[in-house]
Structure formats: C-alpha cells, structure tokens
C-alpha cells in the first residue's frame, strides 16, 4: 500500500526534497523581455558558437546544468540522476548534452510539460531514498522548433494571431535531500486530455482543459485552493489558453484570478515583442521557474507556488494525419521552509 499518496493523482512527500540551486540560459529575444534581469546567461548569438540550432540548444542545456551544479556547491559527479527532455525528435539536445555530462540519465518527453515532469520524478527518487541529488533540466530553441514543426525561418509567411513563440532557453534545477531552500511538497501528475482541438496554431486552447483537470484534481486531492498559494503559474497556455483556463476552472467551482499567471505571458511583452499569444516550449516554464520564480522564492516574495507545466503531445505526423492534439499538465507545489 503506497503511503505517500493522497487522493487520485497526488503524492505528498514525507521528506520534501529541496531545490537548492537553479540556473537559466536564454536567447536574445528572451533577454530583451520583461524578465531579463532574472536570467543567468543571455546569449548574444542564437547559434551560441555552434554549427546548428540543435547543437546550440544542446549547449544551452549543458551549460544550464553546469551552472546550476556550480551554484549549488556540487560537482557534476555528485548528481545521481539527470531527468531531462526537449522538443526535438529523439531528444537530440538532451541526449547530446547527457553524453558530455556523464550523469546517469533518464530522457523524458512531455512536450512543454517536461520541466514539471522532470521535477516530479526527481523529487520522487529523492524522497524514495534512491538518490541524494538529482538535476532536472529542459530546453527549447525557437529556430530548431520552427524547422522541425513549422516552416523555414526565411519563408515569407504570416503567423496566426493565436500562435505562440517558442522560447529559446534552458533551465536547470538541482534537487537534494539537504535541508535548505524551497521544497517540493506535493506533485499532481496529469492525465492526457483531448477535447478535439486540431489547430496547431492554437495550442493554448488545446492544453487549457488538461491544465484545468490537473489543477482541479490537485485542489480536490490536497484540499488546497487558490487561497493556499501566492502564485499559481501555468507553463505556456498563452493569452488565449489562460483566459480559457480561468473560465474552465470557474466552471468547476474554483477561482484562480488573483494569484494566477502564465509563464508564456511573463517571459515576453506580446505587444512590443510581436510574440502574438505568448511564449511556449520546454524552455518556457523551465527558464521562468529557474530564473524568475526561484529567485522570488529565495527573496520570500513568494512562499507557496504551484507550477503547472503544460504540454501539447502532438507530432508533425499526427497533425498531418488530421488527429487532434492530446495534452497534459503536471503540477508541483513548492513551499518555502518557514511556511
């Protein structure tokens, strides 16, 4: 009988693992956005001195891990596991970074929900006594995502107003059983939800029902509500998805309004930066969490945060075969010690 479970989909940790250090690497456009002062490294060149976008993304992920390990006063060899993923076919950026880092490696694909998935699994392996320290890291790159999922960069086409802008960035977080810093106390693992949206230019709307399901289940399982949190933040629903989520949650009898925001809306200024509905990608919730939110937790501006990374589990093949977009969301509760 599992003793650490509560409700249908939630785990409550016995000895909540700490997030003892984070780091974030972002691209040029993100470095011009509203959160610029919170990122550790801002690239001056989207290729990051590499030969291709994919290798540049891989380097961002690798550097994010190295910096996070350094900032936590660890060595790479102290890491028992690396939980990591990205958006590319066969996890190219992640696997290539893991090849250099030589940390025992679990490759994950949860599309843009991967950061919360990695943090969930990392926290479970620490609380389970299977690891002392693990690193959770994800990345995405605008240019590598465009060429895999959409069109060549130089093609003279118009983007839909509901489309989102893939974040160029990587975020890494070090989890440890050392008792210091903000802690992951609960995780709620999402189910795949699909309400039949087929428009690949409107992923926020496809993912909103999954985010609603996970958040409402989290509230039911734990007895928490929006009042229990200083910040509830979804991964990359964007402007349209955020509005839909608020209404869907309200429909279920809960209210998010005062504490709710979306990483995709925090990272860019949509009106100035021409990012249409907002940011997206594995790097979106990773960099916003590892950069902005973690620093706000350390400053005690926020003491209780619910991070809900959202993922659209489509592929180019499934979209071309006319299938709808299956979506998922994972929630993790992060609490400051003193609370």
């Amino acid at each position, binding site marked *: 009988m599992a003793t650490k479970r509560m409700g249908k989909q939630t785990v409550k940790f016995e000895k909540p693992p700490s997030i003892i250090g984070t780091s974030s690497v972002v691209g040029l456009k993100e470095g011009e956005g509203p959160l610029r002062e919170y990122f550790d490294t801002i690239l001056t060149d989207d290729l990051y001195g590499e*030969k*291709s976008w994919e290798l540049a993304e891989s380097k961002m992920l690798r550097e994010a891990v190295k910096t996070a390990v350094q900032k936590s006063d660890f060595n790479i060899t102290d890491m028992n596991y690396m939980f990591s993923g990205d958006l590319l076919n066969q996890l190219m950026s992640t696997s290539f970074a893991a090849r250099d880092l030589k940390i025992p490696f679990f490759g994950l694909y949860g599309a843009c929900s991967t950061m919360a998935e990695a943090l969930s699994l990392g926290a479970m392996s620490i609380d389970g006594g299977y690891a002392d320290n693990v690193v959770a890291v994800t990345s995405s790159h605008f240019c590598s995502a465009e*060429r895999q999922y959409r*069109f*060549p*960069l*130089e*093609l*003279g*086409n*118009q*983007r839909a*107003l*509901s489309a989102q802008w893939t974040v160029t960035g990587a975020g890494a977080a070090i989890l440890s059983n050392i008792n210091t810093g903000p802690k992951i106390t609960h995780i709620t693992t999402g189910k795949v939800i699909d*309400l*039949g*949206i087929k428009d690949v230019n*409107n992923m926020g*709307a496809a993912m909103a*029902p999954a985010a609603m399901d996970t958040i409402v289940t989290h509230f039911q399982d734990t007895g928490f509500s929006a009042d229990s949190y200083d910040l509830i933040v979804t991964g990359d629903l964007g402007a*349209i998805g955020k*509005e*839909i989520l608020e209404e869907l949650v309200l429909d279920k009898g809960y209210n998010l309004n005062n504490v709710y925001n979306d990483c995709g809306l925090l990272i860019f200024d949509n009106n100035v930066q021409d990012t249409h509905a907002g940011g997206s990608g594995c790097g979106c919730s990773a960099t916003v969490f590892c950069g902005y939110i973690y620093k706000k937790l350390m400053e005690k501006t926020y003491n209780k945060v619910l991070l809900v990374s959202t993922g659209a589990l489509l592929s180019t093949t499934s979209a071309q075969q006319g299938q*709808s977009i299956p979506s998922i969301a994972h929630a993790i509760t992060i609490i400051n010690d003193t609370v």
Partner: protein
Amino acid sequence: MDNKKLKNLKKQQEYTSYVNQKIPKPNYLKNCIWAFVVGGLICVLGQYINNFLEDKGLSKNEIATATPVILIFLGSFFTGLGVYDKLGKLAGAGSIVPITGYANSIVSPAMEFKREGYIFGVGAKMFILAGPVLVYGIGSSVVIGLIYYFLVL
C-alpha cells in the same frame, strides 16, 4: 456509435466552437491593403523590367524568359539577405503569389537544410514547400490541356 462516444463528440464540438470565439481576428482590411500595395509594386517592377528589356531591343520571346529570370533572382537574393520574410510578414499573399514568392519558398528551405548536406539537405528539402505547387500546377495544366484538345477537335 454508443452513448459515451456520442457524448464525447458533442463535448468536443461544444469546446471547439467555444474556442473559436476566443481566437483574435486578424485585421483583414489592413492585410488586404498591404497585400494589394506590395503585390502591385512587385508587378510594377516586373513591368518596368519588361519595358526596359524591350527598350534594349530584346524580342518578345526573349523578354518573356528574361523577366521571370530576373524576378526569381531578386526573390532569391532578398531571401538570402533575410529581407523577404519580413516583407512576407507584412504583405502576406501580396508577396507570396508573385513569382518572387515562389523563389522564396524554394530558397528558404534550401538555406534552412544546408546543414544536413547538399544531397539529403538542400537537394531533398528544396521543394518541400514548392513541390505540391508543382505537382498540382503541372497536373491541372495537363487536365486543362486535354479538355482544350477535345473542345477544339
């Protein structure tokens, strides 16, 4: 179809129409004006080249070959400079429909996939966007040609 599937389908339809109300509408008038002006200017440029070549004494057949060649070169050149995608963002169909847009749709994947090599990158991916246009363009011209053939028979 059983009841549960039917209910699910209805839920999906309801959600889709609910989402459709949320999607922001593009400014059609502004887009049309941009497309008209930019598309028109590209055509004026074509006419100018046409007249210029006529002045130089080229025959009608030679002009019909040389004008598209020059426009295709310009479309490719400005794609290479990274300008054509910015024009396309403003003008939409205005810069896609003219022959310069066709050049853009071939050169942009060729540039993008150069890193995969000249055979499987540039060679294989070059027509990834223009390919369907060729297939159905040539295909429909054959059909129309056949219809014409039988009509005048």
